[in-house]
């Protein structure tokens, strides 16, 4: 092989070895989808993702179940009574009624009368329940005192118990609106969509609200957010045809907010608070722009001759950066401001719509990436 041939082959080899086409966005996503469909390894990855998603759904369901558990005594007793009613309805005639007086709600005490032996004080439990009106518990201890009632009065139907004297013990509707601490907690789910400059973000999470006073609540939670932000810089010329025009950051983070909610009127509220941001992952890209002189050959319609027309073609692409701005930093905070509208969805559920703005503080307040964002939250509180 002569030296000319060797040189030529080396030049061709080097040229082809160095030849690359800039990456075109979207190809990885297409490939990933294909890869997951076609290969067992991809299936495993997809299954793993599915399992993780199922875990999140299960966790949400568990939280939902916890939220729906009775948090105060009234509801608990109500449930117990319901069970008793079912039992009573099933075997009223065959068995001796062993209905227990569970509490002081819906209770009347009928004094001894002609229809009942002296010394036996009947207690009628839950007379509002029609199935139980034929069955009362007769307790032999006449001296037993009935604890003072604390709930609503029951108006007994005179026709049903003609021989008994109805005496409502109390007519207390409410005892000053006092709710035990466990009843002042509310839990829920939240999704929100926001814009960082011109990029859309999404977030979802769980939240808890504690009623400090009638109009003031404390709210906290845990939200998984995906935040994207771009930053325009003065162009930096990297080569004769390529310049860097800015950066772009994609952040996956856990946001833990703490807010005070003031609800001056029923249905409308405002909130102010701070949140700590834990960045789980960050991808930073340099935004590049290349300009290439492109030759187009055109035919002159009159002479039929070929004419070369040159034009500058601009192409934008991204190149991943190895450094990150926020990953691993702990002093990342937002100041959160919002107003909202609460809509009662049903007895136990509120639907909340809350426009908000998140203002970067601390380590988030960097000059080169603007993470100020605003949007709307949709919350469901149980």
């Amino acid at each position, binding site marked *: 092989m002569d030296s000319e041939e060797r040189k030529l*082959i080396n030049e061709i080899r080097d*040229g*082809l070895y160095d030849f690359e086409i800039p990456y075109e966005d979207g190809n990885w996503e297409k490939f990933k989808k294909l890869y997951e469909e076609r*290969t067992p390894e991809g299936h495993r990855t997809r299954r793993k993702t599915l399992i993780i998603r199922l875990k999140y759904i299960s966790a949400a369901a568990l939280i939902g179940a916890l939220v729906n558990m009775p948090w105060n005594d009234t509801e608990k007793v109500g449930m117990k009574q319901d069970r008793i009613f079912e039992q009573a309805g099933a075997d009223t005639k065959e068995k001796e009624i062993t209905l227990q007086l569970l509490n002081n709600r819906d209770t009347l005490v009928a004094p001894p009368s002609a229809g009942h032996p002296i010394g036996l004080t009947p207690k009628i439990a839950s007379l509002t329940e029609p199935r139980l009106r034929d069955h009362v518990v007769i307790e032999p201890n006449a001296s037993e005192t009935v604890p003072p009632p604390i709930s609503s009065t029951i108006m007994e139907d005179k026709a049903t118990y003609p021989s008994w004297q109805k005496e409502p013990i109390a007519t207390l509707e409410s005892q000053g609106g006092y709710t035990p601490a466990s009843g002042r907690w509310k839990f829920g789910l939240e999704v929100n969509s926001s814009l960082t400059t011109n990029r859309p973000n999404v977030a979802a999470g769980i939240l808890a609200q504690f009623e400090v006073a009638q109009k003031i609540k404390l709210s906290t939670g845990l939200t998984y957010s995906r935040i994207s932000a771009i930053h325009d810089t003065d162009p930096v010329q990297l080569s004769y045809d390529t310049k860097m025009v800015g950066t772009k950051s994609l952040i996956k983070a856990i946001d833990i907010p703490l807010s005070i909610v003031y609800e001056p009127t029923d249905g409308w509220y405002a909130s102010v608070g701070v949140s700590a941001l834990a960045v789980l992952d960050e991808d930073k890209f340099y935004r590049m722009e290349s300009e*290439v002189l492109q030759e187009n050959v055109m035919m002159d319609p009159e002479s039929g001759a070929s004419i070369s027309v040159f034009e500058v073609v601009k192409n934008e692409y991204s190149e991943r950066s190895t450094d990150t701005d926020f990953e691993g930093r702990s002093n990342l905070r937002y100041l959160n401001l919002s107003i909202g509208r609460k809509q009662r969805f049903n007895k136990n559920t509120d639907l909340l719509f809350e426009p908000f703005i998140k203002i970067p503080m601390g380590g988030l307040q960097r000059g080169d990436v603007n993470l100020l964002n605003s949007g709307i939250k949709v919350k469901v509180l149980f």
Partner: protein
Amino acid sequence: MGTDNDLVEVLSKDWQNIGDKLKERIYKHYWGYLMGVALRYVSDRDTAGMVVNDSFMKIFSNLAAFECADMENFNKLLKGWMAKITARTALNELRKHKNGALRESLTDEHDWRFPVVLQDNLHIENVWDLINNLSPNYRKVFTLYEIEGFNHDEIAELMGISASSSRVYLARAKEKLKMLYRTLMV
């Protein structure tokens, strides 16, 4: 570029245990190079993209098959390994469409908007001009032998020709290239 070196360093240290994140980086980093390889054999970008995706599937499914004895040249050897897979995939694709347009030579329809200046006298566009002026079989044999590093027996198997035909095609391709080169450099 620093990014390239970082990636290559990470890959060379832990090639056998590549996670999804690293696969994404590998894909994005070598996509352009493998597109270049695929375009040596197929003429349109869509088909080249398909060939590249099929090649990456083989690459990711057979990571254990790549063994590097010379860590100094890890990137070069890796690129060579990937290029061989891509060349095989491209030739298989051509075989599937034996009577189709894929056998047509590379033409000006390539969109060379990203010229790369070589160290020597040849510009990348000149390289492609040289390659494109070869007949399809000459071009394939030349690139498979001189660029990808296959031997004549392998080329014979890949192209469905005899090994002696492969030798003849290669000799003629080189003669044609020298002639074209002299014309181009005048």
